[in-house]
């Protein structure tokens, strides 16, 4: 409710102009159903959005366990200092950036490749799109169970790799240090590249064919067409995918929770920031510190998003 009144008052003309004020009041009354229809969102967002946001900042200054609420102890910026110096938090941040670098390259690459192929064919495009999109409906737990079996030491993928001589012997990749993040990225891109494909395909169809025609007449080859027309014209879609995938991907939880303990394995090889935050909140029952980690991660996400808007959107006209 607070937001509503705040927003309205901002658009209210100066009170020294009564006719306008009366006019505004009349319009508010006339269009009162607008407020009533939007009220559910405002109410719910005030309670489950704005209040938690404020609480989150408040909690960072305390050591607080929800099971022992009376032990609330003020620690000032102690949680922040601890978070910035916490090697596990930075390892989890490194892990997720490592994972996302691979995931985003894969989904964008596969999505773009598939979209280009689909644009190029004349028949059957719908069937392929249908198939490529199926994995999107799988849940994260089903995805990781399936992916876990398929990539396991006895699973079909390693089986083939060993037979082809690419792998000397099957690997228990979950317990290695470097493999969990790339393999989770591959499993996730199996699920998500269909979304990138349809978004990029829609983008490809919106490119004016005349751009290609006139460039071809000037003697541009297909690589030049791709680089100087397709990619620049697709920048809005690529940029969207980049930003949204990063915001979602940096908050990975279910994928690692389903396969590892809540500290991401014995070497923390699969610890992600949200998993670490979960462990702090529900294993160490330290809500204040967990809240601080949430804010730190949000700051990292905001920083990366701002960088993307600065350096990528520049190319989007």
């Amino acid at each position, binding site marked *: 409710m607070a937001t509503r009144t705040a927003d309205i008052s901002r658009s209210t003309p100066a009170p020294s102009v009564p006719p306008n004020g009366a006019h505004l009041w009349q319009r508010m009354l006339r269009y009162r159903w*607008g407020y009533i229809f939007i009220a559910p969102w405002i109410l719910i967002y005030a309670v489950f959005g704005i209040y938690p946001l404020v609480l989150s900042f408040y909690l960072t200054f305390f050591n607080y366990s929800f099971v022992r609420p009376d032990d609330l102890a003020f620690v000032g910026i102690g949680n922040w200092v601890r978070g910035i110096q916490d090697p596990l938090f930075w390892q989890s941040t490194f892990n997720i950036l490592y994972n996302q670098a691979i995931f985003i390259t894969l989904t964008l690459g596969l999505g773009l490749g598939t979209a280009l192929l689909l644009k190029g064919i004349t028949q059957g495009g719908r069937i392929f799109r249908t198939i490529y999109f199926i994995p999107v409906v799988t849940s994260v*737990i089903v995805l990781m169970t399936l992916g876990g079996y398929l990539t396991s030491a006895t699973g079909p993928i390693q089986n083939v790799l060993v037979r082809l001589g690419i792998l000397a012997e099957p690997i228990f990749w979950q317990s290695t240090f470097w493999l969990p993040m790339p393999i989770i990225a591959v499993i996730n891109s199996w699920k998500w590249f*269909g979304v990138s494909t349809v978004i990029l395909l829609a983008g490809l169809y919106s490119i004016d064919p005349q751009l290609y025609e006139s460039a071809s007449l000037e003697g541009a080859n297909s690589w030049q067409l791709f680089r100087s027309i397709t990619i620049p014209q697709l920048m809005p879609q690529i940029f969207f995918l980049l930003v949204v995938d990063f915001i979602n991907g940096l908050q990975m939880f279910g994928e690692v929770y389903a396969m590892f303990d809540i500290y991401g394995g014995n070497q923390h090889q699969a610890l992600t920031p949200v998993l670490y935050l979960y462990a702090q909140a529900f294993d160490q029952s330290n809500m204040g510190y967990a809240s601080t980690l949430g804010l730190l991660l949000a700051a990292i996400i905001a920083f990366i998003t701002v960088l993307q808007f600065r350096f990528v959107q520049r190319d989007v006209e």
Partner: protein
Amino acid sequence: MATVSPPMSARPRLRLGKLLPYILLILGAIVVFYPFVYMLMNSVKPGREILHSPNALPSQITFSGYTDVFERLNVLLLLRNSLILAISITLLNTLLSALGAYAIAKIPFPGRDQIFGFMLATMMIPGVLFLIPTYVLMYNLGWVNHFFALIIPAAVSVYNIFLLRQFLDTIPDEQLEAARLDGASDIGIFWRIVLPLMKPALTTVAILTFMGSWNDFFGPLLYLTDPNLWTVQVGLLQFQSGVPGENVQEVWALITMITLPLVIFYFIMQDQFVAAFANVKFK
């Protein structure tokens, strides 16, 4: 002769060039579809074979995984809980988001643009920020181990309002103005004109919301610790992390049962599914 030979040599190249995309796309389709085949195959395979030759075709087809999982795990309870959540969230969210979208798109109330701008801004806030404080809030409300903890915050969503508003922009204002001049109230216009017109977009939003709730794992994990309230996703995780290898056949049967309804649903309504993801852009 000389005039015939160039097309002769060009034709096979042309044909290969036309075939290559299809070959790549078919290979891709096999890779994408294979996990589902693997899942179905292992769900009807005798348990011993899954452990010893997980990649081979089953020597015989058995449905004991499907029947046994009902004995070992209260699947009906899990399904019931998941359905209660998914259906109530979908109904509430579709209705309330449609109301919000109608207000934003068609009622020029003062402050509308500011509210919409604020809504869009909230979409950029990462969800992780809300995680801990919302849990504290729910705990203090006594909603931990209550479906309310999952239903009420999901009763309306900005993303759905945004999608529906985009659709409403394509409906001419004159049509609604005419009804308004005839003396219809906004609530009447919404029920009798806007809702029926919005049907395709509402289906898209409903599908997306249903799938989101059905597949949600983090929410139920946080708020529903009582096994009687577990959803299929939480139940599956608990079940498969039991004794490794012992119940593998039932795990495959359960995965298939959780996934197949959505896959079939997707096949029937794929255009609405895809529409929910495509055509998104900033602004």
